[in-house]
């Protein structure tokens, strides 16, 4: 038997090195290598090619469409998240747990199924399809369908961030404000909002990243009209399928940059404002 003076809860050095090497190489090969490849391929033919792929009209149209869709979907889901968290955290009613489960539901639905349901409601063979066609209203293969699909896949982000945070914070401060004569709006703006602002920002950040990057759901409802209904991720697919790898990876690099900025801001929020985020994100 070897001598053992080390703490019983401390792993021996060889095990530390082994597990550390396994963890780092797994993350390196699985996560970092694809990221490195995106930037390498995007710049493989030089900065000039990269730049021209970026400012090509169809790419710019895709960027614009993605920004518009996220610009509508994210604020709507933010308002919903605040409203849902307000009624769930500040009031008692029956069926609350069930309501929380329903709000989480879109996370466990396949993105393709998320797109499919709107086709079944608004498509030509769907519930409202013929009526919409008679009145010349375009939902599928147009902006409204893309917005709907984006709303569905990003539905729970803000709500699930705010609900545990506001349940934790309780209702004493708001009740005190109300007792002192504050109106509902004053209570929300001056008492609740300062308490939840970083949690709200955290939820909006993740919601926005997913909204700009969603592929499956939007792919089903978009119709893939180049320069018209192609969002950034769909444009990546179109370029890739047409063997325009430089173009595909140029747009992909833009999306990857966005993901990295999101990750950096998210990590910053987790470090700087840990106490003001939902308990699950505290380090």
């Amino acid at each position: 038997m070897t001598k053992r003076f080390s703490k019983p809860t401390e792993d021996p050095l060889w095990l530390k090195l082994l597990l550390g090497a396994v963890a780092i190489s797994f993350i390196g090969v699985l996560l970092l290598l694809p990221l490195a490849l995106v930037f390498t391929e995007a710049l493989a033919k030089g900065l000039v090619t990269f730049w021209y792929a970026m400012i090509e009209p169809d790419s710019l149209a895709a960027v614009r469409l993605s920004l518009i869709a996220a610009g509508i979907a994210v604020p709507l889901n933010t308002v919903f998240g605040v409203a849902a968290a307000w009624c769930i955290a500040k009031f008692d009613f029956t069926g609350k747990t069930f309501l929380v489960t329903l709000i989480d539901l879109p996370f466990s639905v396949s993105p393709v199924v998320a797109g499919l349901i709107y086709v079944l409601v608004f498509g030509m063979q769907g519930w409202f399809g013929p009526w919409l066609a008679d009145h010349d209203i375009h939902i599928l293969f147009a902006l409204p369908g893309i917005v709907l699909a984006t709303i569905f896949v990003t539905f729970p982000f803000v709500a699930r961030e705010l609900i545990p945070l506001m349940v934790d914070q309780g209702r004493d401060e708001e009740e005190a404000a109300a007792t002192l004569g504050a109106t509902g709006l004053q209570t929300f703006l001056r008492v609740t909002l300062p308490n939840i602002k970083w949690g709200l920002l955290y939820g909006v950040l993740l919601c926005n990243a997913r909204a700009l990057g969603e592929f499956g759901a939007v792919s089903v409802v978009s119709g893939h009209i180049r320069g018209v209904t192609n969002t950034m991720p769909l444009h990546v697919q179109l370029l890739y399928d047409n063997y325009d790898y430089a173009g595909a990876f140029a747009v992909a690099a833009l999306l990857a940059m966005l993901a990295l900025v999101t990750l950096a801001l998210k990590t910053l929020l987790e470090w700087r404002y840990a106490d003001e985020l939902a308990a699950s994100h505290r380090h």
Partner: protein
Amino acid sequence: MSAIGLKLSMPQKKRKSRHVLPGFRLSLGFTLFYLASLVLVPLLALVIRPMELGPFGFWSVISTPRVLASLRLSFGVALAAAVVDSVFGLIIAWVLVRYRFPGKGLLDAVIDLPFALPTAVAGIALSALYAPNGWIGSLLIGYGIRIAYTPWGVLVAMVFISLPFTVRTVQPVMSELGLEVEEASATLGATRLQTIARVVMPMLAPAVLTGMAMAFARAAGEYGSIIFIAGNIPAVSEIAPLLIITKLEQYDYAGAAAIGVVMLAASFVMLLALNGLQSWAAKRR
């Protein structure tokens, strides 16, 4: 999720008469309206649609070899990916919680990359990486191993997309464990291996299973990161979500909805299993 479940299941003071705070009806009304019109009613359309096929028609859509193969691939490989991610998720969480080393914060932040990176970007990157002429694919092809355009490619994409779920569910539970129980176990004469197997692992089990279930659910429904690397050969490497899109493009709405209902039913079962796991974990604490 666990935090919500815990809080809500606690008995709360009943406020019988009037609410002190304003806005209950407005916020609950808006929440229910928004939820119903954007999520519940469209999902109802999905459940109702295959009914026009009748039970036999529904079964004949689902039981074709191509559909069965795609469901088996999506769910079977998702299960394999969830197991792989649970094993490596456990190791990564252990390294991040127990060890100190430079660059740890960066490594921790990188875990969430699959959440943040759009799936289409992950898809083309993985495909280019594991293709026979790619950085990894060209190394493996020498040994006769093909990843891209085979079911192995599906596995790689699913392992990629689901890793954060397993790490992020185990990590917080692990850091709350406290060393006292391990010290007690060692003091009572247990070897390190016995302590890990009989003391630490049982305490982590609910979190590991929860992470595995979440990873499985995400992988089974995943589309964007898979279709580029899978090659999409019918009955070999064609996933169920892709078959839904194929049926839609052939205007076979009822057939697409039938596969969609099977996938939705599976995610419901997973959601119930997750809730069960969480109440089990809450009771053990």
